[in-house]
């Protein structure tokens, strides 16, 4: 599903400038056919989570090579590989670091046998009241202020709730962000500025308890940050207004700021803030109310950078350039061609072992920046499956939850979808169906399930209370697990923001894990040097069917490969599925390329 972007071109060598905007899967196929014309490649410009890529689809392949860029899709493919019994070669890169792992059901651990670090989240009050790092200011600017001004008005937003307190009525704060019908945009911008950077900080300062052991923030008003008279930017603005394409609108351009690496002064940040806000209202008014932050949206990045910098000024936090701010706001993963080349080579080596069923030779390989025991490329023997992994060994989970207060909807969203990574779940209590998703449901079933979502657990038709065992199943992933429900009255708002705690899925014992290749380092070493889950732009999956294809390239063979692109490594993004059979003196092969994969990264402020 992924398409080619300019920033891919420094490493995804199958793509050129002229391909920007096109499907990765399709362009990758054409590029490969140019130097290997006789293989069969099938591109799928689709999301790997689409229902058509079900267990039967996966079963046609011999090996799957993942080159995904997000945890969600990786977990999904892991489950389909387990369910279809197809080996998976996983990989990822970040900067100079990279890794390749092999997952074969029953023989090595699955991708989910070890918990993956959750995306970094921050306590709400750090973001809304007591930021200490630049990233806190970015999260505030992006997830609160930007969302408040330009996003969906119905979405919950903590901006009012905590940054202004009881002294201003909630009605009043609601009004502040509203653009009044006859209000000049410049005026509106200044009003927002003074409210969020000035007034709100003053209100926060009144709560002396907060600042006892902290540095007090300084309110910033437009009158301090900018010259007394509204700056005359009209000439420039007119120029900017002549460019027709709304996506090319830029506050930097109209203010004459050129270098994204420069640090802006408070005044420059304030000008960019007002200019960007103004441009949204003047040039992109139609989008307001439905905008989400996108790192490739220049104006959004400018707005967020300036807002974060002004807030950083208030709190005495060092300012950052637009280039740096964009990296933080967009969770941009560093990526270079060389690491990708190395990892792509290692993926192929592992895939070949899988096809030859050379189980003893399987390795997890880490590509390091600094040598460890003289090694820059470090192979480690794969681990055995984790016996307590709920994904590959049916271990029940335990959920502590307030069954009198939490609704089925909370359980579905926060546990089944967010934690268990299921996309088409079915929830059962004994034989009673509580919830189900699917296209083939009857109307009354849909209504019934919708009604259930809004009921608290203990009031469901088949009540869920302490001691209940729920069965949760995803029919597409063919994953089923049991959850023991434990009732608990109270939860810590900051530490347990979900209001529920899932447990029972523990990492395997350290002793079990420390098997390493002869004189290789211990696994714990390896995982310290290399992030377990480099979320990168880049990856691939391949599925191969016949081992002989690899017998040293001497035989001609027919290969069947399918590539789902979302990946980096061989410059394709996605999954590559390979089928192959040996046929004397003929060489057709079949490759399918599927550009994938939903790149929405979920991040919350909690």
């Amino acid at each position: 599903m992924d398409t080619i972007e300019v920033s891919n071109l420094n490493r995804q060598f199958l793509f050129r400038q002229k391909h920007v905007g096109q499907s990765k899967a399709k362009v990758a196929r054409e590029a490969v056919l140019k130097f290997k014309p006789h293989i069969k490649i099938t591109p799928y410009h689709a999301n790997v989570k689409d229902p058509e890529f079900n267990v039967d689809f996966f079963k046609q392949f011999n090996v799957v090579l993942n080159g995904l860029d997000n945890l969600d899709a990786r977990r999904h493919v892991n489950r389909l590989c387990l369910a279809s019994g197809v080996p998976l070669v996983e990989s990822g890169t970040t900067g100079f670091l990279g890794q390749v792992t092999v997952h074969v059901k029953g023989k090595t651990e699955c991708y989910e046998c070890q918990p993956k670090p959750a995306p970094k989240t921050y306590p709400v009050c750090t973001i809304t009241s007591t930021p200490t790092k630049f990233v806190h200011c970015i999260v505030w600017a992006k997830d609160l202020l930007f969302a408040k001004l330009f996003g969906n008005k119905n979405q919950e937003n903590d901006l009012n709730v905590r940054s202004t307190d009881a002294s201003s009525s909630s009605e009043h704060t609601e009004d502040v962000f509203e653009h009044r019908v006859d209000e000049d945009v410049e005026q509106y911008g200044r009003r927002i500025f003074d409210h969020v950077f000035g007034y709100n900080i003053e209100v926060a300062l009144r709560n002396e308890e907060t600042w006892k052991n902290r540095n007090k923030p300084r309110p910033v008003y437009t009158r301090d940050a900018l010259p007394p008279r509204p700056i005359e930017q009209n000439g420039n603005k007119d120029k900017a207004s002549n460019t027709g394409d709304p996506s090319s609108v830029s506050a930097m351009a109209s203010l004459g700021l050129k270098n994204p690496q420069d640090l802006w002064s408070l005044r420059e940040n304030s000008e960019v803030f007002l200019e960007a806000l103004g441009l949204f209202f003047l040039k992109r008014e139609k989008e307001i109310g439905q905008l989400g932050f996108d790192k490739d949206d220049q104006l959004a990045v400018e707005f967020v950078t300036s807002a974060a910098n002004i807030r950083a000024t208030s709190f005495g936090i060092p300012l950052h350039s637009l280039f740096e701010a964009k990296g933080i706001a967009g969770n941009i993963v560093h990526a270079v061609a060389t690491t990708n080349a190395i990892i792509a080579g290692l993926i192929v080596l592992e895939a070949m072992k899988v096809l030859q069923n050379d189980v003893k030779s399987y390795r997890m390989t880490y590509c390091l920046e600094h040598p460890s025991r003289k090694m820059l490329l470090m192979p480690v023997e794969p681990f055995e499956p984790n016996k307590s992994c709920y994904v590959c060994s049916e271990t029940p989970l335990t959920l502590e939850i307030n069954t009198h207060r939490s609704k089925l909807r909370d359980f579905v969203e926060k546990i089944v979808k967010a934690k268990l990574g299921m996309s088409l779940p079915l929830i059962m209590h004994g034989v009673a169906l509580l919830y189900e998703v699917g296209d083939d449901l009857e109307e009354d079933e849909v209504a019934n399930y919708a009604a259930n979502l809004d009921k608290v657990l203990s009031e469901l038709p088949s009540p869920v209370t302490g001691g209940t065992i729920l069965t949760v199943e995803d029919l597409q992933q063919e994953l089923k697990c049991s959850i023991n429900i434990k009732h608990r009255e109270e939860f810590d708002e900051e530490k347990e923001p979900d209001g529920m705690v899932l447990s029972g899925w523990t990492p395997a014992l350290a002793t079990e894990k420390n098997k390493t290749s002869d004189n290789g380092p211990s696994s714990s070493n390896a995982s310290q040097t290399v992030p377990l889950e480099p979320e990168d732009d880049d990856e691939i999956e391949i599925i191969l069917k016949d081992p002989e294809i690899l017998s040293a390239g001497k035989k001609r063979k027919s290969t069947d490969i399918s590539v789902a692109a979302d990946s980096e490594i061989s410059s394709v993004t996605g999954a590559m599925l390979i089928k192959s059979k040996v046929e004397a003196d003929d060489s057709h092969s079949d490759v399918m390329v599927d550009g994938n994969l939903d790149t929405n990264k979920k991040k919350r402020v909690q």
Partner: protein
Amino acid sequence: MGKEGEELTEQETAIYDRQIRVWGVDAQRRLSKSHIFVSGLKGTVIEFCKNIVLAGVGSLMLNDDRLVTEELLSANFLVPSDENVTRGKSLAELCCESLKDFNPMVSVSVEKGDLANFDVEFFQKLDAVVISCCSLLTKKSVNAKCRKSPRRVAFYSVECRDSCGEIFVDLQNYSYSKKKNEETIECHLQYPSFEDAIAVPWRSLPMRTSKLYFAMRVIERFEELEKRNPQDVSAGDLPNVLKLRKELCEARCMNESQIPDLLLQRLLAARVEFPPVCAIIGGVLGQEVIKAISGKGDPLKNFFLFDAMDGKGIIEDISNINN
């Protein structure tokens, strides 16, 4: 950050965004002004060229006058497998065309002639020289010419045999700074030439030195004694190679078991290149050249050895020089 030279263009900033986040604007600027020469365009060097062209070096000169054969293209993804296109053209010419297409901001050109005949004058204009598929004699002489240049020319040689690969690095006297816990430390490395490195007595090397290092030396020496073309060896040469191994080991007081028969056999038997190993070695080589040019990161000293059989990518310091 010290400013040097002009700023990157908007196009450069957009295309190189993800790597500028790795090595910074200054490093990118230095890369874009660097001049690199490669000779011997087989799979590993092709991978290397792809990597540094994408990374945005200033210019790349290609040297390989051989006409294209099917064998030469076994691990070459640059050249279309279309005889109408390839007929009558040299490997360098064909690769040049597609490399230009990879990144229009890099100047890619062909440098005709025999590698052995390029002189010091030629090399001293360059920042890095990468050679492959040449005789031991040429390797030593090109390395020596690079060393004679008044300004440093980083020298690399790379060889892949079967599923094994070796990179040699000579940065002469190399100083760079790195950050460690907020502190900037100055580092100095001294490299021996290829000739001096391979002359380091084997018995002075640690017991656990990679067996591949010794095996590569035996085959290299064999090719030289037999006056073979580079890589023109086969499984049939094994008896004579084993004999040479015995002589070399006796002369250097090393146990023959340090160079297993099986390893030599593998290295001799390989007829075609092995693309995944080309990608790995070409990736490591690309990274090393980028390090040396940009002054960012610890460069490896002075051999890198990879064997797909055990999957280890090992750095060996083979020198008499203590840093």
